[in-house]
């Protein structure tokens, strides 16, 4: 019997997070209630150690554990992105959890487990492994969505997410089963080689690819598989919504890129066309419906759908440049969107009461700092030059034009103009309407300030000096097995 090559260092980051998550769960009951906020900092420490472990993974490129795990620049890039997202989410959550009186330890442990799942998804070279990562992530996120268990909306959110998520998982499994039938393997590289053989069951492979595509489209919330998003985002606790809009989306796209670029390049023509339609539909629906949302969380939900559409444009372009633009965009989007959600969390006050546009009226006069930062994140989401959002969109549209998708680009830029309307509406409320309240019960907390600082710095830095990160994303894409 062969014993597969074991290389602990190659999965170091995921391992660290899983262990820290368990430690938190074990340690929590022993901590006095008043001291349980420490678990948040413990989790943050875990993220830092995991970042270090990711750094140490650099030298261990290659296939490990019976080719189940593929460590390359792509994996490492996404590890950093996930750690960035989870780190910001933890910072944004600390005072929220205390304010709402929610159980501390479980929350952070679940976040770390979710991150472990995402990391597994980004590096897995086998459909079964990907499925495991997907489930670890999903189950943790279902619980997080319903974390405010006495709140009906939070319950609704969790249940909807769970039902539709399970549905998507089933699609994924069906797809896996079919491709196993066609190629006798669930290993991505083996599938790719098998599809090169002329007499392979190409229809079966095509069906499998379609099912997997649908499953992942559910996960990243692109039209027409997006309908669950607004309700789930609205009901979930605000920092969790921020996390869901960034983390699982990035992980879903990571898997999408890996599966389709590594296993299904033979079918590229067909899925490129499908993605064209999906991308166009997503950008139009997301942006147009967002215009009519009075609730900020719902508006950001539709905006997150629209942004998934832009990433889909990059993927439809299906060139290394396109996918590297998508990677860049996912990172940029994480920074600006988590920043926006952190402010939504701060302003929503206890039990997420104040989340409609009107609640933001006059914020700039009373809290100029917060208003300025939210404006920064919003104009970045809208894509004003000088911000990360613009750099990302520019790279995406550039790649799309390069691949000949000029009309898709035109749809993209025109829907961007639509998005200006709803992002600027928030700024109208903050800057151009009289204050309805004094905003005195806002406590500026240390952890929130750090989160905002990091998100703002990222948004501006990536906007003005995108060059280095763009190189990294390109080398990440080039490192995929091909």
């Amino acid at each position, binding site marked *: 019997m062969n014993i597969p090559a074991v290389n602990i260092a190659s999965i170091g980051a995921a391992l660290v997070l899983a262990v820290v998550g368990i430690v938190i769960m074990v340690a929590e009951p022993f901590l006095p209630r008043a001291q349980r906020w420490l678990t948040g900092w413990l989790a943050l420490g875990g993220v830092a150690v995991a970042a270090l472990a990711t750094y140490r993974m650099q030298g261990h490129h290659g296939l490990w554990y019976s080719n189940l795990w593929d460590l390359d620049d792509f994996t490492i890039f996404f590890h950093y992105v996930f750690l960035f997202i989870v780190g910001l989410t933890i910072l944004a959550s600390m005072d929220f959890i205390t304010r709402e009186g929610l159980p501390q330890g479980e929350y952070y442990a679940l976040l770390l487990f979710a991150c472990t799942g995402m990391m597994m998804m980004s590096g897995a070279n086998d459909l079964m492994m990907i499925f495991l990562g997907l489930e670890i992530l999903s189950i943790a996120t279902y619980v997080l969505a319903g974390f405010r268990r006495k709140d009906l909306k939070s319950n609704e959110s969790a249940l909807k997410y769970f039902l539709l998520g399970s549905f998507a998982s089933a699609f994924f499994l069906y797809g896996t089963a079919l491709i196993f039938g066609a190629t006798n393997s669930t290993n991505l590289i083996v599938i790719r080689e098998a599809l090169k053989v002329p007499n392979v069951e190409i229809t079966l492979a095509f069906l499998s690819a379609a099912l997997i595509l649908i499953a992942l489209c559910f996960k990243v919330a692109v039209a027409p598989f997006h309908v669950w998003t607004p309700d789930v985002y609205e009901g979930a606790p605000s920092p969790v919504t921020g996390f869901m809009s960034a983390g699982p989306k990035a992980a879903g796209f990571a898997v999408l890129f890996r599966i389709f670029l590594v296993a299904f390049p033979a079918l590229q023509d067909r899925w490129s066309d499908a993605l064209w339609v999906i991308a166009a539909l997503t950008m139009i629906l997301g942006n147009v419906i967002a215009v009519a949302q009075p609730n900020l969380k719902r508006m950001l939900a539709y905006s997150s759908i629209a942004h998934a559409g832009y990433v889909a444009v990059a993927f439809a372009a299906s060139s290394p440049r396109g996918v590297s633009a998508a990677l860049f965009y996912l990172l940029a989007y994480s920074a600006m969107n988590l920043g926006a959600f952190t402010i939504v969390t701060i302003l929503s006050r206890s039990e997420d009461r104040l989340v409609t546009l009107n609640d933001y009226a006059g914020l*700039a006069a009373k809290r100029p700092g917060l208003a300025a930062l939210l404006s920064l994140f919003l104009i970045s989401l809208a894509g004003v*030059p000088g911000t990360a959002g613009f750099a990302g969109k*520019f790279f995406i549209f*550039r790649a799309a034009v390069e691949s000949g998708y000029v009309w898709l680009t035109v749809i993209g830029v025109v829907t961007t103009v639509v998005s200006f*309307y709803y992002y*600027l509406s928030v*700024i109208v409320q903050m800057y151009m309407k009289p204050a309805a309240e004094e905003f005195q019960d806002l406590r500026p907390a240390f952890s929130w300030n750090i989160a905002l600082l990091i998100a703002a710095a990222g948004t501006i830095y990536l906007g003005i000096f995108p060059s280095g990160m763009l190189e990294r994303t*390109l080398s990440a894409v080039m490192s995929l097995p091909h």
Partner: protein
Amino acid sequence: MEALISSHILTIVTFTPAVGALLILFLKRGRLRSIRAVAVVMAVLSFVFSLHLIAHFDNANSEFQYVINIPWIPSIGISYSMGVDGISLFLILLTTLLTPLALLASWSITDRAKEYFIFLLLLETGMIGVFASLDLFLFYVFWEVMLVPMYFLIGVWGGERRIYAAMKFVLYTMIGGVLMLVAIISLYFMHGTATGIYTFSYPAILQSLMTGRMILAPNVELLLFLAFFIAFAIKVPLFPFHTWLPDAHVEAPTAGSVLLAGVMLKMGTYGLVRFSLPLFPKISHFLAPLITSLAIVGIIYGAFVAMVQPDMKKLVAYSSVSHLGFIVLGIFSFKTQGLEGAVFQMLNHGVSTGALFLLVGMIYERRHTRSIDEFGGLAHRMPLYAGVFLIVTLSSIGLPGLNGFVGEFLILLGTFGVSHGRAALAATGVILSAVYMLWMYQRVIWGEITNVKNELLNDMNLREKLMIIPLLILMVWMGMYSSHFLRPMDAAVARLVQRVEKQNVEFALNPK
């Protein structure tokens, strides 16, 4: 040292105001005087630095001068690249001159003054950047970035319908801008495919087009031209894309109107001169009859609508539609006189209309109304104001000896060489402008004081005099010694005419 300054002068001029904005960010919001002082000092500094541009400008050189070229995103051929020629030189100077004046006109702003001055300074950086950029990507960045401060200036410190006006302004400009972005990216790839060099550098792409290394198919050229043209036509604004302008002008605070009319509208016409004509000369010729027709409609329509406006600001706004029509007409005459006249008229309009908005702002601050029939007989109480207003009015309607005449004359001369009928039609605009401007002047300044509220008005104070004197000097200077301003343009305009005419000959021989 001299060389070092010259090689970075454009960066210094462009970003001095932004540095000022950063400084203000760290001032306490209550310290109004310090905030104002920093803003004015930094804007004046930027103006002083910009004088270096004219002092060391080589009139005989048709190439870009003071060129900076630093790789920015090298992997896709984007660089931080700036330079000026005779066309952009004066537009930069106009910007650096008008901004300090606009700042001085903002003393009445006390609500959230800190943000206000930050936005004004950022706006200046954006505007200078547009005129100085030589990289298409960089140009686009400045073009769009500038919208944000202007949006806030109108939306926060504007009049009653400010939110509507601000949103309309942004969405109109955006829709043109994003299509231009697609065109820029397309141009970049076509250049890359044709020459193997993937770059957003404007001089490089222009060079390839001129030497024939890169040839655009007619239908492609048409689409690209339209994408650029719509962006510029909205900004100008050319009839029928003008509807955002009166709203934005009426609602904007005085400084916003001054910079909007004085500088931002010129970005549209500058874009036509800098990009549309040299990059797409064939289509420019092909569409010139249509575009000049729109320009003439704009000249006459703007003038008639201006005539019936009860609101002084709205009157000046519509007069801008009319005047900008002249500039477009001059540009699309493709003649040396027409083009020089157009560039000269851009400066004129900035100076004259800037002054008009400042003057309207002065009585608005006193009376909080701009309605013409609220006034009358101001000459009795504000003799100095009446005198200044007269000079500015005469400059705006093109009295010989003042600046407006030179520009309009050159444009009409250029147009006359192409079509007598069009020149004649456009000339009616000159007459109409005299009608609406003088009629407004008469109703506001002459006559007896009919409204008791006007009995106690004070004449211009020191700050207001400071604001208006530089513009008065310029009006006379530009009218009397126009060659001081035209000579530096010669080389750049000659080069442009040569580029466009060469294509015209080819076009005439072989229309496809």
